[in-house]
């Protein structure tokens, strides 16, 4: 899938500077053009290489910038926090500090690196524009035939140029970037990679001293001179004298800077200093759109519409029905082969296992006589000791047992003597409450003849033996 083409549009008075960026492998091709912004929008459309309404499926994105003069910029320090909390803190500060009600503002911010000053803090560069000015600017570009996908600020453009478009070494500390054209100087002050201020200084002919002084003021308004590590100078070759004058005024090295090696012009050549100075903001906008589309301060623009990938995927699948049918048939054949193979293999293994088991004696068959004996004992054995123990437990001292008779088929009968006739009935009641005896009956008492008595009961839980009658012959 090809990379989208990004077009940066920078409005400079009545001139629109355009930079088209296209990534080819590791290289980034830049095509620049300067267009007069005509009063008649239709004329502008006809001369505009960027289509007013891009054709369906076209992958061109337009990034434009608000003029610096209409943008309010602040650089604040906040305690480091997560994205939602930081956004709320910035919103409160914007509402308090900017002279426009927040509901009439379009604003955004860019986070700097986290620094530790006792506690963890983060510098944030905030920019805001009146909503009506955003609308007006978008309408102006739209009327001229330039549909803008994202409207941001010149500061974002210069930041992106500084980060991705220049051949420089990443360093800590403050740096100043000066883009010089015949009309004006664009002075950007960076601190630890974050843009702190951007100022456009008009370059009046024959008043170089004044321009240099204004430049100095713009820099010293942000950082003291000795904190500036170097000034990066990007200007046409003819401006050598200006470079010398600025260096002399600031007392700091003013180093010429070139475009990054991966940025090439239409013919594959490196961008010239003139081109970089004039089209720097436009190139920066294109770079911002290409490298930081989700991080740039977005003040307005067309809603992002993305083709639903799932729909595309389905269309791709539906485009080759025979191929998919063949794949499904192949899968079905593979599945059948696996099923049949697995069944055959399992059957073979189980046959081997059954053969091995058949040759060995079954452990259950060896235990079967003992198991049968145990089950018979559990079913038919009478627990004589338990029965007599349960019988003797409730017998009081006044009763003497003289005989006990029990049998599987018949009842339990016991005889004895008691000095207390009531104790006999109390014993019968106590036996009735036991789980082992049922139908407990005192069958006879003889208080006059030594207190003799007889009590009978049925035994609970004693199974009768299976019928022992011979029913036919045995199978041998």
């Amino acid at each position, binding site marked *: 899938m090809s990379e989208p083409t990004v077009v940066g549009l920078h409005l400079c008075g009545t001139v629109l500077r355009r930079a088209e960026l296209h990534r080819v492998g590791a290289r980034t091709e830049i095509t620049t053009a300067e267009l007069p912004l005509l009063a008649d929008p239709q004329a502008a459309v006809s001369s505009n290489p960027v289509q007013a309404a891009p054709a369906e499926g076209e992958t061109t994105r337009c990034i434009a910038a608000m003029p610096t003069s209409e943008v309010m910029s602040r650089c604040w320090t906040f305690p480091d926090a997560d994205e939602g909390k930081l956004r709320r803190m910035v919103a409160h500060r914007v509402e308090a500090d900017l002279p426009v009600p927040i509901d009439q503002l379009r604003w955004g911010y860019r986070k700097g690196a986290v620094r530790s000053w006792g506690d963890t803090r983060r510098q944030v560069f905030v920019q805001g524009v009146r909503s009506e000015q955003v609308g007006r600017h978008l309408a102006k570009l739209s009327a001229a035939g330039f549909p803008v996908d994202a409207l941001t600020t010149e500061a974002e453009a210069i930041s992106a140029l500084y980060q991705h478009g220049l051949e420089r070494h990443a360093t800590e500390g403050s740096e100043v970037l000066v883009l010089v054209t015949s009309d004006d100087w664009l002075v950007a002050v960076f601190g630890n990679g974050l843009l702190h201020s951007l100022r456009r200084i008009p370059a009046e002919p024959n008043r170089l001293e004044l321009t240099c002084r204004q430049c100095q003021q713009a820099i010293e308004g942000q950082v003291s001179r000795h904190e500036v590590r170097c000034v990066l100078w990007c200007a046409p070759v003819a401006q050598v004298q200006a470079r010398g004058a600025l260096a002399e005024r600031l007392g700091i090295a003013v180093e010429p800077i070139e475009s990054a090696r991966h940025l090439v012009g239409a013919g594959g050549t490196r961008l010239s200093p003139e081109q970089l100075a004039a089209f720097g903001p436009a190139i920066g906008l294109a770079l911002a759109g290409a490298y930081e589309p989700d991080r740039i301060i977005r003040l307005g623009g067309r809603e992002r519409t993305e083709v639903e990938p799932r729909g595309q995927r389905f269309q791709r699948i539906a485009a080759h029905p025979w191929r998919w049918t063949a794949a499904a048939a192949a899968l079905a054949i593979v599945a059948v082969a696996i099923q049949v193979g697995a069944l055959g293999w399992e059957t073979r293994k189980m046959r081997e296992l059954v053969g091995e088991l058949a040759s060995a004696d079954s452990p*259950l068959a060896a235990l079967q006589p003992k198991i049968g004996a145990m089950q018979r*004992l559990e079913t038919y054995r009478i627990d*004589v000791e338990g029965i007599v123990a349960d019988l003797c437990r409730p017998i009081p001292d006044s009763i003497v047992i003289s005989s006990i*008779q029990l049998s599987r088929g018949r009842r339990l009968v016991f005889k004895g003597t008691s000095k207390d006739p009531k104790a006999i009935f109390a014993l019968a009641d106590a036996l009735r409450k036991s789980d082992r005896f049922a139908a407990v009956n005192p069958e006879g008492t003889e208080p006059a003849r030594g207190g003799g008595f007889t009590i009978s009961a049925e035994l609970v839980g004693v199974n009768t033996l299976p019928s022992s009658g011979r029913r036919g012959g045995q199978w*041998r």
Partner: protein
Amino acid sequence: MEISRRDRRALLLGGVGLGLIAMYFLAIEPLASAYAKLVADHDRLAAKVARRIHDNRKAEYYAGRLKEYEQTAGELSGPKPYDEQITAVGEQIIAAAQKSGVQLRGATPTAAVPWGNDPTLEMALFHIDGEVRWENLMTAGRGWENVFKFIANLYRIPGVLSVERLDLSGEQKKGSPNDPSQGGKIALRLAVSVLVEATPSREEPWAR
């Protein structure tokens, strides 16, 4: 000879039909039969293996239970032929009586009768007569204790199923009928069931 377009179409359809029939009988039907046979074999063998695994687990479970049971009830064994079993049980009844302090008067086996649940088994009874004596109150409790020790020892004899009838009667010495301190005895009559192996000679003649 020229073939009309209609004939050609009829021949084509007939050829396709014959081809389909041949394909069914030569390819599809044999393959389907072979697959059905394979599945049936697989199911039969799987059932056999599952049954064997189940048997092994059951055997493990019963082995544990038998071990526990034999610790309390004595050694378990399968039934033996009548002569062998009666001899062994009779010998061990005498030993049990001696060990328990019971004076054995007699132990008489009866003929075996069929065991209703299992045609390979028969049941015989041993009628046991005995007595336990005590001399004074101190040894009166030991008399009862000996009776139950005897029954417990009977239950540890391999082949003995259960006590079928029990008749215990205490007798004091003459002249002191209600005074156990003067000594006495417990008369013991038992019927004990013993399981034996059914012998072919015991089959009913008309059952052959």
